[in-house]
């Protein structure tokens, strides 16, 4: 009733707040732009420096050459002063190690996800899930020296006892440990997608007299396949980009081999090797790191985009 005697309502003073709102919005936009700007900057610098590299070394030689020995010339007139920049051994090395890692992590991660989501009692779930999360929280450098100082010597000793020649820095050691590292990634993502399969599907199957394992095999897993595939792709992308483990355990010898017992090197390990220590900034050797980085970036980007798209499409299916 108190307001009824004033004929007009004050609509003007709220303008004062408008300036503040704009200010807040501006600050928020600026903050979010930082991330975008950094991303764009990194991509541009990758592209730019890689382009400078390809001015010296042809793209075809980089992508298809099988020799990798980025030497820096000691004398200006040295033969092959610029070294060889064929990235094939690095790419195959990366793929070999990632493949071994996926061979380890896919069954272990997937099966533990099935156990956790379908069989585990609340108590064991509460025990195992945190344990898996701890696995995910171990710094990769720790995995790295675990691979180099524990797993690799074990493999070497084991190989010797059966007469196999295992290199002390083998793809197998790095791959095995990397597999351990990505288990939690696969298991927690797969656990989520398996849980997202509606209970009604399980009820329908169980209600028809299917056993628990039949229900999982014939109804739950087929429904969850796209999501599981997505989680595997994400894990693969993580494996390909992983650095510390391979730096410490896989070695730097650019061998072109499919033998997991030999030492191989990876794109990431080479980038580290190229850029540690004092470097001439515009030598082909330094610039090649950018070219390698670009290859890595494009690969993992494509994998991530495809994986996320698959996972998202799958999630929509049941909304």
């Amino acid at each position, binding site marked *: 009733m108190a307001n009824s005697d004033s004929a007009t309502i004050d609509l003007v003073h709220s303008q004062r707040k408008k300036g503040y709102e704009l200010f807040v919005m501006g600050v928020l936009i600026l903050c979010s732009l930082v991330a975008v700007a950094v991303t764009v900057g990194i991509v541009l610098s990758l592209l730019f420096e890689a382009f400078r590299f390809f001015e010296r070394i042809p793209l075809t030689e980089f992508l298809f050459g099988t020799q990798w020995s980025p030497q820096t010339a000691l004398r200006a007139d040295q033969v092959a002063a610029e070294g060889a920049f064929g990235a094939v051994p690095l790419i195959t090395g990366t793929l070999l190690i990632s493949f071994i890692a996926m061979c380890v992590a896919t069954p272990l991660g997937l099966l533990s996800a099935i156990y956790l989501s379908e069989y585990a009692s609340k108590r064991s779930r509460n025990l195992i899930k945190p344990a898996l999360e701890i696995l995910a929280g171990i710094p990769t450098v720790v995995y790295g020296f675990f691979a180099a100082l524990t797993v690799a010597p074990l493999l070497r000793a084991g190989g010797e006892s059966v007469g196999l020649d295992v290199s002390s820095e083998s793809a197998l050691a790095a791959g095995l440990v990397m597999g351990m590292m990505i288990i939690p990634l696969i298991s927690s993502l797969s656990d989520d997608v398996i849980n997202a399969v509606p209970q009604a599907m399980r009820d*329908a*199957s169980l209600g*028809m007299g299917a056993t628990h394992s039949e229900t999982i095999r014939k109804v739950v897993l087929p429904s969850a396949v796209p999501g599981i595939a997505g989680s595997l792709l994400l894990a693969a992308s993580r494996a390909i980009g992983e650095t510390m483990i391979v730096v410490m355990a896989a070695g730097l010898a650019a061998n072109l081999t499919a033998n997991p017992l030999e030492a191989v090197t990876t794109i990431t390990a080479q980038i580290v090797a190229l850029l540690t220590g004092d470097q001439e900034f515009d030598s082909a050797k330094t610039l090649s790191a950018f070219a390698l980085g670009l290859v890595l970036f494009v690969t993992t980007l494509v994998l991530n985009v495809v994986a996320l798209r698959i996972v998202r499409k799958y999630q929509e299916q049941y909304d």
Partner: protein
Amino acid sequence: MSKTAIISAKDVDVFYGEKQALNKINLDIPENKVTSLIGPSGCGKSTFLRSINRMNDLVDICRVEGSITIKGQDIYAPEVDVVALRAKVGMVFQKPNPFPKSIYENVAYGPKIHGLAKSKTDMDELVEWSLIKAGLWKEVKDRLDQPGTGLSGGQQQRLCIARTIAVKPQVVLMDEPCSALDPIATAIIEELIDELRNNFTIVIVTHSMQQAARVSQRTAFFHLGELVESGATKSIFTSPEDERTQNYIMGRIG
């Protein structure tokens, strides 16, 4: 009690943890008839339905006491295999829940796991028989390879019925099978239920008293975990003995 009873519940108590959901239920369900379970929400009718094929086993904290027999066999006896029980006592759920597979695969799912068809021709015949029985054959016979999830709600529910009867159960439990459907789809399913009772014993939980009156021959009224009254549908609806039944039917409670 009655000689034609296929299912017989004696002093059935069901608990969810500490909470008692059903209290001393005694009910006989006659063969080849439709028995409807009615009552307000939370009265325990769905719980009772789910005890008949032991779907309650899936709930960790659920405990069933007393005895439920099917053709004289105690279904909670330790030697009973729930898998075999559920093959004999099928279930249709509230929301249509076809598998994300083809129409054919949906119907063939049960027969496959139970090894009911010896050859592809056997399976084709069984799938056709089930879809005909479920009144869906004419609508889908040209697109059996298409996903079951692409059908309309009413068709999906009939697909679920076809899937259930493909296993040739003796009893079909239906948990509010029409509550997610429009009136036309509901009418089709109700007609279907009436035909299905020639081959199967049907127990249906429903919130709609009109539906209970239309499709069932026997009705049991549940209230607050107790079985208040059961008998021929006609007499339950015209001359209920208990005041609570009368109030519910008149729309005064629930």
